[in-house]
Structures are given as C-alpha cells and as structure tokens.
C-alpha cells in the first residue's frame, strides 16, 4: 500500500512537471481543474461504492467460497465458480494464498481457472468503482463483453486438461524435470 502510494505520487509529480514543461502553470492548473471536477463529480458515488463494498466484504467469507468450490463440477460448476470468484472480495495478498489452499484437494484445474478468471474479470466489488470513476455505460459494455471470458477460459482448460488438478499438472512438470 505504502509502496504503491509512493509510486503513484512519483508518477503524478512527473506528470505535473511534464505539464509545467509543456504548457507552464496554465496547463498544470487546467489538469488540476479537471481533477477537481472529476473528484467533485465522483465523490458521492465513491462514498456509496465503499459502503457497498464494505457490506459485500462482510457477507462473503472464505468458508462460504471454499465450501462452494469443493462441491461443484461440469458446466454448472464452471459458471458457479466464476460467479463465486467475482464475489470473492479480497486483494492479491489474500487471494493467491487462498487459491493455493486447493492444491491438496481434488479440485479440477478448469474449476480453478473459472474461479481465478471470474475473480479478475467480474470482481463485483469493483463495479461501483468502474461506474463512479469511468461511466455506467462503459462499465455495462465492459461487463457484457467480458462476461464469457471465465467460462471460455475454463472450457478451453477442460478440453486441454480434463479433470486434472493443479497439483497433478505441477507435479508432472517436476517429474519430467527430474527425469
């Protein structure tokens, strides 16, 4: 968090300097004016978005997700897994250790792919932010066009790997390295 804030501050400073270099104080002020306008426009939406995200975070928990993933298979499993992935409201620091937990279970790779792609593509907690920071029209078109991505990814994975698990796939590569 601190690192990304510092990185962002440096990037912002560089752009402010660039604006000053290319257009002087006038261009810097124009940029700040746009920023202020966008902030004013999105402030209430951002507040509503975070209130929504907070509720979502406290409703969906790891146990619920884990229970669902272990009990599904087939096309219905792919769709459920993708949707549950989209509902799973945690960042990468918690998400990948959580996914790794399934290494020991007989969870097919295609279900895992549907879950991960669903998380990244749908991420329902991100919808309010997409709506408030970009536009509801773009958010809607983006969701509709990327809706099939986790399902297509999982179906391709099923065709390639059938019911094999992540552990089996990783062990096979380790075995071949040993040989």
């Amino acid at each position: 968090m601190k690192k990304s804030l510092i990185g962002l501050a440096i990037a912002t400073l560089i752009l402010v300097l660039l604006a000053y270099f290319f257009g002087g104080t006038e261009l810097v002020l124009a940029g700040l004016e746009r920023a202020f306008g966008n902030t004013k426009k999105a402030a209430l939406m951002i507040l509503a978005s975070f209130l929504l995200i907070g509720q979502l975070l406290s409703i969906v928990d790891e146990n619920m997700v884990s229970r669902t993933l272990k009990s599904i298979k087939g096309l219905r499993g792919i769709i459920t897994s993708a949707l549950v992935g989209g509902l799973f409201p945690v960042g990468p620091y918690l998400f990948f250790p959580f996914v790794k937990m399934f290494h020991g279970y007989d969870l097919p790779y295609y279900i895992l792919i549907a879950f991960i792609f669903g998380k990244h593509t749908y991420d329902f907690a991100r919808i309010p932010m997409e709506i408030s920071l970009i536009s509801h029209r773009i958010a809607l078109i983006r969701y509709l066009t990327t809706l099939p991505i986790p399902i297509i990814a999982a179906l391709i994975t099923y065709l390639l790997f059938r019911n094999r698990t992540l552990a089996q796939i990783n062990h096979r590569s380790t075995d071949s390295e040993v040989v």
Partner: protein
Amino acid sequence: MSITTAILALVALALFVFNARQKGQQVTGLITGLTLLLKNLPIILLSLILAGMVEVLIPHDFVRNWLSAEAGIRGVLIGTLGGIMLAMGPYATLPIVSSIYVSGAGIGTVIALISSWSLLGISKTPHEAAHLGGKYVAYKTILGLILSFLAGCVGLSLEYLGL
C-alpha cells in the same frame, strides 16, 4: 445526486438489510467500508490528479491515430498490451483509464485495457508465480492475452455498430 449514485446507495442499503437479517454483521460492514475508503483515499485523490494531468497532456493526434475507434484493431492491441503494464490497484487504474477514455479512446481499446489489466496486470504475477507456479502463469498469460484481445474486438464491433 445522479441516478448512478442513487442506485449504488440503494444497493448498499439492500446489502445492509440483507446482512442484518442473514449475518448480523451490518455494522462491521459499514465500518469496513469506511475504513477501506479512508485507507484508499490518498491513492484515489492522487490518481484523480494524475488522471487530470493525463487528460491535458495526452496528445489528441496520438489518441485519434492509436487509441480511438478509427485506430481499429491497432487500438485494441495497444489496449491489451497497455493493460499488462498498469501495475496498480483499481483505485489508481480506473481514473487513468477514465482519462484515456475521455481523451477520445475507443470502447474496444478501453475494454481491452481493463480486461488485460484485470487478468494480466504485472503486479499480480509475483503472487501467482509464488503460489501457483510458473506453468500456471504461462498458461494464464496466453489465455488472458487472447481473451482480452477478443473482448476488445467485440467492444470495437459494438462501437462500429453505433452502440
């Protein structure tokens, strides 16, 4: 208050009521949301300033020739590859994407950008490699690149159709 804000507030209220009835953790949810907002506020404000600067700095000729709907597949391709480079979280990335869109980028480009950032953003790779292995990263990258590009192409087609 815009209609979008009203809808978001209504959904938040509905989730609050649902949470109160099903789990009884509605206050925790409220506190979590506000804490998350406060924690992310510096990032949101900085990225909004950054986005404002992008809006005034980005050359219109560049947007028209490389990122707009007129740029066609080229714009989608740049969006797909550009998304990988956006190594930031949603609160920083989305204002930047917004500034690119406001500057005139096409819908196909924007969709490819968001899609490839969310699937392939370079900041995720170390976590994925560490927890799921290099083979998974390679497989996901190939799939993600193809599917993000295709999603961008669908967006571009919709734009050509006038949607």
